[in-house]
């Protein structure tokens, strides 16, 4: 028994050494002398272990390989290493007795034979990071097609994925990445000119790999069930490689038409395969190819913007040291820091009250307070990431859509380094996508139309992000035709959203576009016009406790302004008192606070109460009655009414008194108490007690 476990552990140890070597052989491009030395030492270790476990065969192979590798020149070391690793692996497989899961390398399927979930998970995370970086870089490359550094960076992405995929035996990924790598290899050797079509190809390839990664994540057989869409892509890649000489000889096209608009028909439009997983995506790709072959439109970026982007690119992509930390550890740190702040404030109150004469102590305490709040700020910042990546990803959508519609759009970014909580970034992706879709489909005119209006035929969509207090403000503005007030009013009347006689302010008219199902588009396109979109934007933003506003001037463009808290972990809250209980109402939903006159309150059926405010009747929601909390205040005119709003509906919450405005850290109430209507979570208040955070929307739902 003991003997066999020992053998097993030796076996696992050898496997680990091999795995490490295999990864190195796949991911490293070249090996310097001292690394070669350490690699040889690894084989020596394998030999030693194998000898100990009586795997004579393995020991012998490892020994011979050591001496071979030691003599191998640096240039061919990697390939020699690869052979060596596979030889030892074969040998290990042959010597039997290995733990289950290590065998079965002959199944021939795409599923990895070395099923180590940890490795696969790492592969998924790493590949996603690589692919995200490649997208940014590819878009940057479009602006600076001559930049070999960028091509190299993209090349390395596909190379790394290829290496990892080969190691984990995701053959399909490996083979496909290899084709892309070949294409990029030509590009970096300046044998292939980077044209928008090549950019398209690289983007589409990265998209396909992303789908592969998703499929791998979905389960062990996920990759097998992914439809075969790479065939067409590979075809296009091969075609592009084949055509490269023709292009350079015949036409000498300027790499990216910065001034001229030379379109190069490369992609065979008919060969774009359908992909049931992402029909939209496929439609986009297909449409893009059509545009390409029709030799008409091009996205010609202004040179200034191009260089601008490139500089920030290189700055952002500069090697930064980072480590991956389990979020549960961060959460724990946040909890502890929160407690530290509470304890600190209790100590401070105590000391300032009791020993006012001791100035040295007071000074030290003040310093402690400063340090604690700095520690708290830093802790919160640890979850924050720059928003730039999301902006550029949305920029990619702009690029694709503009090409599809034959519109010419330049994308500008400002404030890419602005940081925001990672979860917020993820949730913001959808709203931004809907906004740019809308802008390109409805807002931005065709080039000819723009020219006729005396505008530059190159339209612009601008993303900006800035911090404003504890909020991040993201703006998306275009210089298109703007929202058509008359058209919105007409549609709103048709859809009975407003009465025929209603006279609305400009802001109120703009607000109408956020209604579910609202669309002014005359015809429904694949992109927008179905009336889902703007309401999604508002719903998402409000879910994040933010606000979205729209401004527009006819002929001058539209600007969406999204205000969001920097993190979901902290909210600006209004602390109120009802009886002895204290509740926190998110400031994002508070519109107005007032004490009504007795005459303004009316009663419905002796129970429900309404209050008249600015000529509107608002229902009063009695918190003490609803939550079963005893309160001495019965009449609304003795209480404080808080007007809250979500999804356009307003309601008054009746509370005893206001305690104050405060930033609070949002915490869950735990698994057992998670679906309580009207309560979204809890927070630790200044005195260390728990205060409940109210979910205004659900309260309204109960009215």
């Amino acid at each position, binding site marked *: 028994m003991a003997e066999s476990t020992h053998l097993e552990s030796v076996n696992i140890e050898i496997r680990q050494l091999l795995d490490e070597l295999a990864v190195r052989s796949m991911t490293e491009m070249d090996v310097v002398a001292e690394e070669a030395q350490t690699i040889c030492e690894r084989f020596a270790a394998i030999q030693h272990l194998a000898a100990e476990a009586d795997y004579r065969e393995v020991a012998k192979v490892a020994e011979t390989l050591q001496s071979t590798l030691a003599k191998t020149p640096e240039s061919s070391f990697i390939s020699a290493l690869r052979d060596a690793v596979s030889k030892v692996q074969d040998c290990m497989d042959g010597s039997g007795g290995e733990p289950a899961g290590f065998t079965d390398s002959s199944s021939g399927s795409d599923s990895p034979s070395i099923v180590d979930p940890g490795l696969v998970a790492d592969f998924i995370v790493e590949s996603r990071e690589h692919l995200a970086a490649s997208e940014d870089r590819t878009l940057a490359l479009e602006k600076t097609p001559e930049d070999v550094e960028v091509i190299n960076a993209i090349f390395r992405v596909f190379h790394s994925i290829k290496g990892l995929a080969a190691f984990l035996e995701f053959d399909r990924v490996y083979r496909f990445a290899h084709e892309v790598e070949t294409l990029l290899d030509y590009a970096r050797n300046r044998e292939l000119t980077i044209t928008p079509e090549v950019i398209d190809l690289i983007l589409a390839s990265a998209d396909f790999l992303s789908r592969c990664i998703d499929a791998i994540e979905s389960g062990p057989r996920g990759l097998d069930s992914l439809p075969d869409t790479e065939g067409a892509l590979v075809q296009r890649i091969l075609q592009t490689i084949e055509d490269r000489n023709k292009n350079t000889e015949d036409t000498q096209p300027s790499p990216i038409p910065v001034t001229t608009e030379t379109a190069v028909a490369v992609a065979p439009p008919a060969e774009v395969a359908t992909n049931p997983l992402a029909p939209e995506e496929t439609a986009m790709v297909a449409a893009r190819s059509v545009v390409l072959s029709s030799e008409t439109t091009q996205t010609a970026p202004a040179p200034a913007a191009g260089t601008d982007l490139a500089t920030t690119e290189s700055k952002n992509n500069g090697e930064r040291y980072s480590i991956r930390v389990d979020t549960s550890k961060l959460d724990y740190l*946040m*909890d*502890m820091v*929160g*407690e530290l702040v509470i304890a600190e404030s209790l100590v401070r109150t105590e000391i300032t009250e009791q020993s006012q004469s001791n100035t040295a102590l007071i000074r030290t305490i003040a310093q402690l307070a400063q340090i604690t709040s700095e520690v708290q700020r830093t802790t919160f910042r640890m979850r924050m990431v720059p928003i730039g990546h999301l902006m550029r990803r949305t920029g990619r959508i702009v690029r694709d859509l503009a090409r599809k519609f034959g519109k010419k759009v330049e994308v500008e970014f400002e404030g890419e380094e602005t940081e925001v909580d990672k979860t917020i970034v993820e949730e913001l992706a959808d709203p931004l996508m809907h906004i740019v879709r809308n802008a390109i489909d409805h807002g931005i005119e065709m080039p000819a139309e723009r020219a006729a209006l005396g505008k530059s035929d190159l339209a612009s969509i601008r993303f900006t992000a800035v911090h404003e207090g504890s909020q991040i403000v993201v703006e998306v503005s275009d210089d298109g035709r703007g929202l058509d007030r008359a058209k919105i009013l007409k549609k709103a009347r048709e859809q009975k959203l407003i009465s025929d006689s209603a006279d609305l302010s400009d802001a109120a008219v703009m607000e109408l576009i956020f209604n579910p199902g609202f669309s002014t588009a005359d015809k429904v396109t694949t992109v927008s016009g179905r009336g889902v979109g703007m309401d999604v934007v508002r719903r998402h933003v409000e879910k994040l406790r933010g606000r979205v506003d729209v401004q527009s001037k006819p002929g001058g463009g539209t600007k969406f302004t999204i205000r969001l808290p920097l993190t979901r972990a902290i909210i600006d809250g209004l602390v109120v008192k009802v009886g002895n*209980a204290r509740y926190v109402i998110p400031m994002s939903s508070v519109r107005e606070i007032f004490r009504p006159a007795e005459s303004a309150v009316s009663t419905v059926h002796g129970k429900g109460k309404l209050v008249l405010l600015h000529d509107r009747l608002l229902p009063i929601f009695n918190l003490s009655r*609803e*939550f*079963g*909390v005893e309160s001495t205040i019965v009449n609304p005119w003795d209480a404080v009414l808080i007007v809250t709003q979500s999804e356009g509906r307003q309601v008054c919450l009746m509370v005893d008194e206001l305690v104050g405005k405060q930033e609070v850290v949002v*915490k*869950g*109430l*735990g*698994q*057992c*108490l998670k*679906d*309580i*209507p*009207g*309560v979204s*979570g*809890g927070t*630790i208040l200044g005195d*260390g*007690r*728990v*205060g*409940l955070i109210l979910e205004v929307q659900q309260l309204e739902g*109960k009215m």
Partner: protein
Amino acid sequence: MQSEIVLAQDTCPLPNKSRAGKYLVFHLGREHFGIRVLKVKEIIGLPDITAVPHTPVFVKGVFNLRGKVIPVIDLRTRFQMPEIEYSARTCIIVVSLEGRDEPVPMGLIVDGVAEVLNIAEGDIEAPPAFGNELDTSYLLGIAKVRGEVKLLLDIDRALNVAQFDALARLGGETSEVN
């Protein structure tokens, strides 16, 4: 030998688990209960508790345990025993329940804790069946120690988290009707 026979019976909730081991003994009125020490995270004095609306009656609310918000239930109310004034001996046993994905911390208000006992398998008997009148499925068994009876709680069953969800919904609905 006797325990072997007991283990084979249907009434035993956890046929495969040995019930012997260390138990934290606490009391509610005159009844003494034991919880496996492994389930207990800590014992604390009664903190400030914030009531949460629309929850079952035995849920007293939530409290702050070093920055974490933890739900707390009154075991007396849970076992349909009469409520009493909290005293200086009243305390909260923080236990870790089995959740869907991860352990769920929960506070239990008890009248007082007594000791930690090492209980041998031989001292444990199967929980008696009282028929429909009294559900004893949340008892691991009944131990006799020094002539005293200790009811050994299967705390995961007594406070089943899934069942809790249903109760919470029920609680929410009933108070809505009022």
